[in-house]
């Protein structure tokens, strides 16, 4: 039982991180209608910035704020300079640019900080003894911290989308960019802000996940997380923040339980399992669990 609980806690913690990354994907998708496959590597880059700041004596929380700030600028600048010019041509062009950015940010991080693995400090107490006992299982404080940050972040994103003008305009632009422009919404600005916002969310995901990752901070850290996050976002519905969260948690828990109990999948197969989930969702329920079907009566 306690083993089961510990695996469940592990799964929820990883799932929480997939959830935030998926949230970043959803924010971009909702405001621009495209999946930003470079989101993970942009987050990796800003996580390196947070790490680098700690090496010159800046406390990690300040480094995290800085990383989030850079993430915002990076997202906004990338949208304005690289995505917007090609977006008008086709969705495929946007996808290719995102893939290009994927390799570019990874290479840039490698160039600036070399490819050696860095030990990443955690925002929360993460010693072997920093845990609470729950039903005989250990619930580590840093895991709890990740949960809290995720809950706060989700609340903030929910409020932004549903209770603010900016959020309303973002949803309008995502649903019908031309009508949004005709209503007086400055669509360009909205898209830029959407990408910037996703940059913040992604950066926080990066800083939270790397200390928990077996790979710590290396050039390979974010790729598997992006795969899981994409699966989570698709699972929950690409336009639903709620769905991203549920999807992230489900994928995280499944991953932990499957690798724990089904021996032949352990190791590298969980990523394949996530891809299988993606394919199944696309086949069976393309809008995901919480996604909205396009409703239209003529």
């Amino acid at each position, binding site marked *: 039982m306690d083993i089961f609980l510990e695996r469940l806690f592990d799964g929820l913690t990883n799932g929480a991180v997939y959830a935030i990354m998926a949230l970043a994907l959803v924010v971009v998708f909702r405001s621009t209608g495209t999946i930003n496959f470079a989101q993970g590597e942009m987050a990796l880059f800003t996580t390196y910035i947070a790490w680098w700041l700690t090496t010159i004596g800046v406390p990690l929380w300040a480094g995290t704020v800085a990383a989030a700030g850079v993430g915002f600028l990076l997202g906004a600048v990338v949208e304005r300079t690289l995505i917007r010019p090609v977006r008008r041509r086709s969705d495929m062009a946007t996808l290719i640019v995102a893939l290009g950015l994927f390799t570019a940010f990874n290479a840039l991080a490698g160039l600036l900080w070399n490819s050696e693995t860095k030990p990443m400090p955690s925002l929360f107490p993460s010693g072997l003894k920093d845990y609470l006992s729950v039903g005989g299982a250990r619930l580590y404080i840093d895991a709890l911290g990740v949960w809290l940050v995720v809950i706060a972040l989700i609340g903030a994103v929910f409020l932004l989308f549903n209770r603010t*003008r900016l959020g*309303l*305009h973002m*949803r*309008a632009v995502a*649903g*019908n960019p*031309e*009508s*949004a*422009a*005709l*209503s*007086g*919404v*400055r*669509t360009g600005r909205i898209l830029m802000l959407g990408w910037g916002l996703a940059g913040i969310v992604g950066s926080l995901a990066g800083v939270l996940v790397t200390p928990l990752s077996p790979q710590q901070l290396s050039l390979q850290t974010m790729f598997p997380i992006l795969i899981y996050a994409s699966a989570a976002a698709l699972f929950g519905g690409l336009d639903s923040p709620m769905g991203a969260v549920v999807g992230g948690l489900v994928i995280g828990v499944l991953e932990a339980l499957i690798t724990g109990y089904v021996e032949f999948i352990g190791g590298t197969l969980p990523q394949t399992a996530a891809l299988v989930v993606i394919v199944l969702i696309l086949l069976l329920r393309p809008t995901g669990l919480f996604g*909205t079907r*396009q*409703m*239209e*009566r*003529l």
Partner: protein
Amino acid sequence: MTLPTAETRPTVETLLTVEGLAAGYGQARVLHGVDLEIGKGEAVVVLGANGAGKTTTMRALAGLLPYTGRVGFEGQALGGLRPDAIVSRGVSLVPQGRGTFSHLTVLENLHVGAAMRRDKDGIREDVERWCSVFPVLAERSRQAAGTLSGGEQQMLAVARALMSRPRLLLCDEPSLGLAPRVVAGLFEVLARVNREEGVALLIVEQNAELALSIAHRVYLLEVGRVVASGTADDFRGDETIRRAYLGY
């Protein structure tokens, strides 16, 4: 063909002046120099066959298409402005095929329509006003716009466009795909908005009879050019036009 001329135009202050408007899609030129004028508070209809360039004219005026030629609104040039800037100058388009936000609620749709306004109280008042003009919007205020019937969506599209408090409302084929009874109701409201609020209208319409019933003046567009203009009565009185566009 004896066509009426624009000289019969009532003497009102000019709101919109269009001179030599030329536009198209890629290599295909659709408009070859359209000239028209709308006075303050006037209701003007553009008639013309399919492909005459009516929708292109509307999209160019709203800033959705690049064009050459001069467009002046309240004495200021609109050329080269983005759609959102044109809205804030006081020109609002109800595009063909409604252009509502199907996944947003009716209320949210109205609020998006006030995107560039900052006066919270005024926005709330306007929401209430258009909900009382279009009672169906009040009934369905929390429903997603996509679940509304075609007629209800068109009402919402018009109300959304009015939320920006335009001095000129452009309507592109508002009757398209709607039942006759619904269309009559819609035009009644458009006429009322024009009469009571003093909002000038530029309406593109296939349903010429209905359009003439609320219009002060008419332009006839053929292959990207204005070939005739006059008052609604001139047009009803002209046999050639009556046969070609009114069908009797």
